[in-house]
């Protein structure tokens, strides 16, 4: 990449894999468990967080020298809240059904620990361009896990992807269902999301031994 220096590239690629907000820092778990039963919801959630974190990081970074440190959390909250309201209204206007499924979870992006975490840990101490890259990197790292979990939960739990039946019709008994296959109801339940995230963590740490914590 000619556009980005090596250091800047790392800002994007690091949270994507070895410093993933969900699997390594174990942040933003609540939304990962709640909305990943459908792939579509996972994708929309990822894009929303991408927008909020990317723009939010830039805004906070621009204001970092004028925010009094005593009230910085309040300022951060106002920035996130503003951005989340924009996302919420856009969804209500253009994807009403989806905004109903996601329900409170769009609003709860405000409390997503990844966002406040990046503001505190990065945007307050770095310039806007680097903050932007950091925001994008972390949001993508978050989104990738959400989409992987959402993919498996929807495929195995409902036999569909993005609402389109891919394994056949469970009622008419076509496709795989003709051979006695059944949807796995456990996949739809939040505990399974936790187990899937756990499996991703397992795979990741056995591929990269450096990530295993000492006890």
């Amino acid at each position: 990449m000619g556009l980005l220096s090596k250091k800047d590239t790392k800002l994007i690629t690091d949270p994507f894999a070895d410093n993933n907000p969900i699997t390594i820092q174990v942040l933003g778990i609540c939304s990962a468990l709640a909305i990943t039963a459908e792939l579509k919801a996972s994708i929309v959630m990822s894009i929303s967080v991408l927008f909020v974190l990317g723009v939010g990081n830039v805004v906070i970074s621009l204001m970092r020298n004028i925010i009094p440190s005593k009230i910085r959390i309040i300022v951060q909250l106002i920035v996130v809240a503003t951005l989340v309201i924009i996302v919420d209204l856009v969804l209500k206007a253009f994807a009403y059904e989806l905004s109903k499924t996601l329900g409170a979870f769009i609003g709860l992006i405000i409390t997503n620990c990844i966002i406040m975490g990046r503001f505190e840990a990065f945007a307050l101490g770095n310039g806007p361009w680097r903050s932007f890259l950091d925001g994008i990197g972390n949001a993508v790292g978050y989104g990738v896990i959400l989409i992987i979990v959402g993919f498996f939960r929807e495929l195995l739990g409902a036999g569909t992807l993005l609402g389109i039946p891919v394994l056949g019709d469970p009622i008419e008994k076509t496709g795989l269902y003709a051979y006695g296959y059944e949807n796995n109801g456990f996949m739809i339940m939040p505990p399974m999301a936790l187990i899937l995230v756990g499996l991703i963590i397992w795979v990741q740490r056995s591929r990269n031994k450096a990530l295993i914590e000492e006890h």
Partner: protein
Amino acid sequence: MSLKARLHDLKEKYRGTKMAPAFNALHTFLYLPNEVTHGGTHIKAADDLKRTMNTVIMALIPCLIFGMLNAGYQHYAAVDNSLRLNPLANFFTLDNLWIGIIKVLPLVVVSYGVGLIIEFIFAVIKGHEVEEGYLVTGMLVPLIVPVDTPLWMLAVAVAFGVIIGKEVFGGTGMNILNPALTIRAFLFFAYPTWMSGDKVWVHAADPRVGKLGQGYIPDVISGETILGSYAQNLEPVYTNWDKFFGFIPGSVGETSTFLILLGAAFLIFTKIGSWRIIVSTFAGAAVMGLIFNAVVHAEIITESSKFFGLMNTDWWEHLMIGGLAFGAVYMATDPVTGSQTNKGKWIYGFLIGFISIMIRVFNPAYPEGVFLAILLMNVFAPTIDHYVVQGNVKRRLKRLNAKTA
């Protein structure tokens, strides 16, 4: 050279290689290992993990054989109700056994096959010996599922239970949850229509599996379990002796309280199972049953309530129906996931029985509350032990202080 000596030679030859654990597992399964303890061991005993596991399996064999016969008996009795008038005469028939062989044995084979393959793979990856832990789990699993459970579902559940329930924690002896019950819980939540309801308990009563025979109308008679009938405020058709000896529909091996009690006696006699846990589980269930009976007696709950049927069930009947006895004897006593201290065992068992009956009565969707209760108490067992040990430490400190003061 005898086969045994040959195997010993092979073992020496493959020592340290990747495949050694898998090979050693086969070897120790067939013969006693040729290694003896060196050094200053003070306590020598003949019982190792393998013997412990085999004792439990021996205690389970009567339940398995009974379950096979019962699979056929329930199948034919659902077609022809008159068979139930004289269960003894119609139970021990070859026809019944045949249904058991074609329906129950595949469950056993799949359970062992999938589970042991996973154990072997993990042993090879981790480079340790294959552990015997799955021997008992593999036998328990087919006994606690409905007879018509599709084999692929069982395979998926076993893979899940062994990997997530046991191997990720470090294998046999390290697991928090009972693997057999993890498998049952997975099946229950993943494929509820195959694990509950009124038809899955009798072979071919479910129209998805087959037809019971000529003139059979699926809605007329079915394999309604006793718990299911009570949950709907209906009077079940079975006598108390049927319930005690197990001529009732249910999961494959858990129907016969009589054989389970025999197994319990065997386990207690061989000192494999903890009598404290078994007794306290039954006691806990009886206490909860008595409380519910008292509530009904005081007319706080009347017949209009949806809880009436199960609450009005006599406390001693609760001990015979459903999986309570099986859970108390074979599941709760698992030494790995249960409490370790003697006082802790009393508390642990009592709460299992108590909570089982509570779940059974209050949530008719989960009439088999016992497996949830045991899993719950598995999680709490270390906490119970912790407080028992702390309590002991405190008491002794007090005594010491009183003496020295």
